[in-house]
């Protein structure tokens, strides 16, 4: 499933990050395939999604379009 479908507060493992430039940016910010994440918040009115990377402690917000390109397996 994509990050979009993951319920708030649940944990998952990132399987694939799609997209060209955005994929590079996300990886640079410290979110990589194989990392365990926790979905912290979903912005109201279709706002961005905040995830915590449990593998390194960083927090990243991504827009919903990008979130749809991040495929995860719930843990």
């Amino acid at each position, binding site marked *: 499933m994509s990050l979009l479908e993951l319920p708030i507060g649940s944990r998952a493992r990132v399987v694939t990050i799609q997209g060209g430039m955005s994929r590079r940016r996300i990886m640079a910010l410290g979110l990589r395939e194989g990392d365990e994440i926790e979905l*912290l918040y979903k*912005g109201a*009115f*279709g706002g961005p999604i905040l995830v915590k*990377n449990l593998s390194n*402690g960083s927090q*990243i*917000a991504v827009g919903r*379009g990008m979130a749809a390109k991040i495929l995860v397996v719930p843990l």
Partner: protein
Amino acid sequence: MKRVVLVGQPNCGKSSFFSQISGLMVQTSNFPGTTVKLSKARVKFHGQEYEVIDLPGSYSLFPTDDAEQATLNFLLNEHFDIIINVIDASLIWRSLELTLELTELQKPMIVVLNMMDEARRRGVKIDIEKLQELLNVPVIPVIAIHGKGIYDAVRSLREARIPTRFTFSKHIEEAITSIEQKVHNRFLAIKYIEGVIPPPSELAKEIQEIQEKFAELHGLPSYEVISAERHHLSMKLAEKVTEKRGKRKIMLGDKLDRFFLHPVFGYLFLILAFALIFATAFWVGKFLEDLIISPLENISSAILSGVSSPALREILSSAIDGIIGGAGIVLPYFLPLVFLLSLFEEIGYLSRVAFLTDVLMHKIGLHGKAVVPFLLGYGCTVPALMATRIIENKRDRILSALLIPFVPCSARTAVILALVGYFLGLWYAIAFYFGNIIVIALVGRFLAIFRNEPSPELIIEVPSYKMPSLKIIVKKVAFQVEEFIFYAWPILIAGSIFLGVLQAGGITNYTNYIFAPFMKLISLPPNLGITLIFGFLRKELTLVMAAQAMGVEVTKLNLVLTTKQILTFTAFVTFYIPCLSSVVTQWREFGGKVVAMSTVLSFSVALIISLAIAII
């Protein structure tokens, strides 16, 4: 003198560290050919002088924005002796990746482990000795915002050493070595293979073969192959130097977000916070303005009374008006606004603002990160235009540069409050501001028609909340104010003098005549023509100019203008070309094409709105 570069990931506290070692004597300039800021400072320590250069925050040296590109270019092309790598200790797992990339430069280096207090609170224990041993460079624990460990860090610059040479898997290492033998630079060899910089023609074929081989073996572009290896190396390194994490405490900061990012309370607080910011800024601004203006005016009239020639008097008076306009009208409102915004930024709330406003900003074709320059725009357009540098995408920067001039700065706010607020009432003024936001959104949508790709998605780091440091906030404010004083103010004064010359030469008398048909079109008295046409030379004095043109006092303008005319006039003043300083800034930052677009756009919008008000 030794040249030291400061490199670190965004939000690692690198600027705080730089502030602590640099004192107040900081020189700033732009990287050649870019708008990325470069800050330098000289530090003297035990007889050794260092020039410390604060390179822009970079997640990696595989650039994904202008700032990272500037850092990479500097490391590749400029001379330096020592690298200080600043790391957020609480995020050591991620931060070491950049550290490893820096070791590839094989230059003397020290590592500064910043935010040790935060790391401790998060249950991250780092074996500093071990890290020192594995990297073969001094590692200094620091709490930059409290100034702890700064002395040790500067002292250890003498002990900076060439770091350990980390090796990749065999086949990658072979490829690197092969190129390295030809270019005699490991870092450069890696960057060629990664495809970050185009190789010289004699190496092009070999590099391409390597890249193809990597693609075949891993099914990934070469930069990802190397970056993944580096990631594993850094994770291994981090594992060796961190103790198994104890039970992670739920931090106060984590709880705060439950409120600040809440779909209802988060937005309520956002509105409240900004209402408070603006109220405070205007309240403090008014206080400062009253404090500054009358002594300045006294000095001004004292000077002018000594001048007998009427022409000279006119010009001198304009010059003084320009000075007063900057010191007495713009600065008092700008200062508190910038202070409060810097405070929000330091605490970490601004990235939450970006999170909350992302949807809204998407409506005008931008994303949440762009909200900061727009907010600054309520203070002064010039620093707001400069602040668009934080937007990584060029197209978004230009879009912001076209929209920001529509945000009423403090000079225009003075006009709005005095005309609409004073004569028509507070609710009209509030409605005017909301109307302004709607117009900006509509113009943004209109401009979106010309963009053939959708605006890029928001991808930002949301760092943990931090205790703000007054010293750093003061520095940030000083920096913004400096930009106003050195860039905007001189142009404001020059524009004012120019207008004075025109008036002394009697040229302005003809303008009203020429523009009379235009003024008739938007139903304003012809006398106001000069105020509108030359207003952009000194918009902060629009009100005074309007009163002069109509031959009444400012407080009696409602006797000679109808409600509609007051609205039309204010709208026109608010929406058309903000001022000469902003035009010059646009020119310098974005070039003539953007200035031309912005001028046409703002004039059209001002005209359409004035016509609309006149017709309704």
